[in-house]
């Protein structure tokens, strides 16, 4: 946590926490935008292979400016690099990897998550141009679907709810949520609190959450390095 804000984790710190749970040897898809940050905090000594749905397995970080190859991009359309052992494939193979259950983990962003595991992360309603991309495929493909998110919206509304009010991306698909305040599992249609910032009381955390936080077993302190 930074000295200037000890009340919640930064995005980098949320990403760091999520990265700690990715096992050696895992095949992982990171949603575009904020979730891409998780790759930066992969613990040393673990070999993790990242999948990008436009057709690359085992890609690396972005190249230096001026060395981009625009036929070598990730799903966020950012230039990436290859690693020894990379593979290219077409879109049907790529989504066979997704829908066929071959990915170990998908980490996605969220507008809202419900206690039954429903996720809303693609549409804020009728206004504007709708766009879905691969999110609806990813939530039904990976063995484990986790979400990283602020605990509340910019205006302070809960993002963890008893039920989603925005259009759904998938039903009953999320199993763990990493927020700026806590780590919460979704088990049996309930939010089970696993970790929380030591600086926040359980009462305060509950007041910022739109459904009951169940205590089932120990609740650890959410400790994250300054990043």
């Amino acid at each position: 946590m930074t000295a200037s804000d000890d009340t919640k984790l930064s995005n980098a710190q949320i990403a760091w926490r999520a990265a700690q749970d990715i096992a050696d040897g895992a095949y992982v898809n990171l949603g575009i935008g904020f979730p891409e940050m998780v790759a930066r905090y992969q613990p040393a000594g673990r070999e993790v292979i990242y999948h990008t749905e436009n057709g690359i397995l085992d890609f690396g970080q972005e190249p230096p400016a001026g060395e981009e190859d625009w036929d070598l991009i990730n799903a966020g359309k950012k230039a990436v690099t290859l690693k020894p052992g990379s593979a290219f494939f077409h879109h049907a193979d790529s989504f066979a990897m997704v829908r066929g259950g071959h990915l170990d983990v998908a980490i996605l962003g969220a507008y809202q998550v419900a206690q039954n595991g429903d996720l809303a992360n693609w549409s804020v309603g009728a206004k504007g141009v709708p766009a879905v991309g691969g999110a609806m495929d990813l939530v039904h493909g990976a063995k484990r679907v986790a979400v990283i998110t602020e605990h509340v919206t910019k205006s302070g509304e809960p993002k963890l709810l008893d039920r989603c009010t925005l259009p759904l991306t998938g039903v009953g698909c999320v199993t763990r949520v990493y927020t700026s305040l806590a780590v919460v599992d979704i088990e049996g249609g309930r939010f089970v609190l696993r970790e929380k910032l030591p600086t926040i009381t359980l009462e305060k955390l509950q007041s910022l959450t739109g459904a009951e936080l169940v205590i089932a077993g120990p609740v650890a302190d959410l400790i994250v390095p300054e990043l």
Partner: protein
Amino acid sequence: MDKTIATPAEAVADIGDNATVMIGGFGGSGAPIELIHALIDRFVKTGSPRNLTVVNNNAGNGHVGLAAMIEVGMVGKLICSFPRSADPRVFTQKYLAGDIALELVPQGTLAERIRAGGAGIPAFYTPTSYGTELANGKPTAEFDGRPYVQERWLKADFALVKAHLGDRLGNLTYNKAARNFGPLMCTAARHAIVQVSQLVPPGTIDPEHVVTPGIFVSRVVEVTNPAQEELLNRAGATYP
């Protein structure tokens, strides 16, 4: 057998009004800019082809390629998964004005619908979109205790695809992640029209390395040093 065509203009000459055209590419990677621009040239000169249905992952970026097709008014409907990009203004304005129809399809479902179209599979079931508004009106069924949504095949009159190496028989390789939808679209279109960066004699591509076998390809046109959409947009290019 010789599927080679001399110029992009000749390669796309018989694409008519109201045709369904699959266009390869994910964002700029794999976008067949020269084939698209040849089609725009004919539309600007003759007013045809108009009212096209275009299948692409995105909705164009900037003012070149697919975005330019939309901008000149030759696209009546777009079937895509993610109609946003760094600069999506052309599509956004047409869509919000009601001048272009949109069928939004999850990305993996889009790929599989095209694959099914090419493989003669009229429909299939996928867990994707179950319980969401994108499944509205579609049949559902349970298999082994899980719910699935029925999706239908997607076929086209033409596909415009960018490949790397090609021979006169239509055998193709692709360049890195520019492969994306190309191999699928070649199978699902009545006529797959492919621009290749280098035309090579048959036998040059190792049969072990052929990605798209020539049976799926109707026409091959060599475009050396093809334009890259991302670089055109960074240079502020517009077309025509």
